[in-house]
């Protein structure tokens, strides 16, 4: 397959929709057609080569590697329905990165805006800085959030983290904003600290691990934490990705079940006061 390097050759000052870039994931896609991929820039259709300097190098691996440089927050829908290939984005990007992603890997060195990993079904999204609203949530007007895959964010996220999430793992190293984990159906969410309001409303099932102390509302009932083996397994899994241990040896978790107002059986692990 190919190593593809994309570098913007014009200054991007309006919305750039890169949804069609994911055509490269199709094994039948001819690389000769790559330059002619249609993208929308300020709602006008353009060829990819009109926006980017493109360099293609063949390599022996069974997947493509795509490197995008000099991006900004106007770059949207990068990695939409992404499969198989690996995408590296070297700076900040806009909304909808990895939305409906199915497999493969996307690494973003900068910050992303809203709806990152929304309705993601599989694969791995790694964000080195912060993310905006509706991470791993459902897309506007939809009811089903992330249904598989892994999202790891080293920075903070803002509101509506994992809204209506169904399956998969989300790790947020920093803080989360308002309405985090609302309407969680299932899946696993690990958050460094919850700083916003209305955390974990209407949780049905799923696991939320907060790596700090948090006072939960009365719709969560404290129960025994007997999940030592599971927590260690999870820690091992995260360590294999991040190359560092997130559950420190002095952590003592409290386990609470809820949301009782919706007869939920979700669980929240948080550090003991």
């Amino acid at each position, binding site marked *: 397959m190919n190593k593809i390097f994309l570098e913007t050759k014009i200054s991007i000052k309006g919305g750039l929709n890169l949804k069609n870039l994911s055509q490269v994931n199709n094994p039948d896609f001819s690389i000769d057609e790559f330059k002619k991929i249609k993208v929308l820039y300020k709602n006008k259709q353009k060829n990819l080569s009109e926006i980017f300097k493109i360099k293609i190098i063949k390599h022996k691996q069974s997947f493509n590697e795509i490197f995008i440089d000099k991006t900004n927050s106007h770059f949207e829908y990068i990695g939409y329905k992404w499969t198989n290939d690996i995408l590296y984005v070297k700076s900040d990007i806009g909304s909808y990165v990895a939305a409906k992603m199915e497999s493969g890997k996307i690494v973003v060195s900068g910050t992303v805006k809203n709806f990152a990993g929304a309705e993601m079904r599989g694969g791995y999204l790694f964000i080195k800085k912060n993310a905006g609203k509706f991470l791993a949530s459902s897309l506007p007007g939809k009811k089903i959030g992330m249904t*598989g895959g892994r999202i790891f964010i080293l920075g903070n996220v803002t509101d509506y983290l994992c809204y209506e999430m169904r*399956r*998969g*793992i989300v790790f947020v190293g920093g803080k989360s904003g308002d309405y985090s984990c609302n309407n969680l159906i299932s899946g*696993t969410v690990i958050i460094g600290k919850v700083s916003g309001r209305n955390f974990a409303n209407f949780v049905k*099932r799923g*696991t939320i691990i907060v790596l700090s102390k948090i006072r939960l509302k009365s719709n969560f009932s404290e129960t*025994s934490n*007997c*999940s*030592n*083996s*599971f927590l*260690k*397994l*999870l*820690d*091992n*899994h995260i360590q*294999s990705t991040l190359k560092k241990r997130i559950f420190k040896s002095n952590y003592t978790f409290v386990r609470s079940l809820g949301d009782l107002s919706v007869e939920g*059986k979700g*669980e929240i692990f948080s550090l003991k006061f």
Partner: protein
Amino acid sequence: MYNNIKIDNTFAEAFPMKASRLIITAHNIKWAREAANAFCGFATSVIACGCEAGVEQELKPNNTPDRRPGVSVLIFSMSSTELQKQVLNRAGQCIMTAPTTSVFSGNFSDDKINLGHSLRYFGDGFQISKVLGGKRYWRIPVMDGEFLCEEFAYKSKAIGGGNFLILGDNIDHVLKAAEAAALEMNKLKNIILPFPGGIVRSGSKVGSKYKSLIASTNSEYCPALKGIVKSKLSKGVNCVLEIVIDGLEFDDISNAMKIGIKTIIKKKFPGITEISAGNYGGKLGPHLFYLKEILK
């Protein structure tokens, strides 16, 4: 002759089996061992146990999926169906019942065996499923907390029935030699010695004068029958013990036999006169382990 021990010009005959590896972890090594020993109980021979199982090795916390002390066990059976049944029953009755334990698959193949996939129903609707790294795990609530269990174990091709016989003048000498060999062989990976302490005294032959029996005593090697049957024992031999080896690959068994036999030769145990092997003229199985080739 090696150190006055005769190595018979014969071969051990082994047969294809199906095998699976499970990793049992627990709060401490004692309970991982307890569960593993219960899991491997009554699993010496497929003749009447349905499977052959044994502890492969003990694992340190940094070598187990949940970073707790663990034990890896290997279980062998003649058919996929029987292996599936044995793994599930034994995991449910021997591992899930032991305090603090968890169970994970220790190998991977395309052939799955239901583990948590079936055991989860014990959770009566309170079980929780988690997918980590492409594998599904089940958390089943139990009275000491949670029983964590991987959804599937996996079965792969394996070989059972590798063996060698230790012939000597009396039980003291032969038992000592067999114990030393079993001790060294038990340190190896990918094999188990399924019999008690790794040693078997009731080696068998195929068939019997009684029609309902598929196996009966190996009369050619019974010292008590010398003189009344066509015996393979020379005059000074009054005791024979066998070490049976099940392994994942031909080379694993071959290497184990080599280490076992060489231990006996090297340590110059008194009274040991001969090393032989059990076979059925090549009719039982396709895997033949020639003693002289193994020792080269």
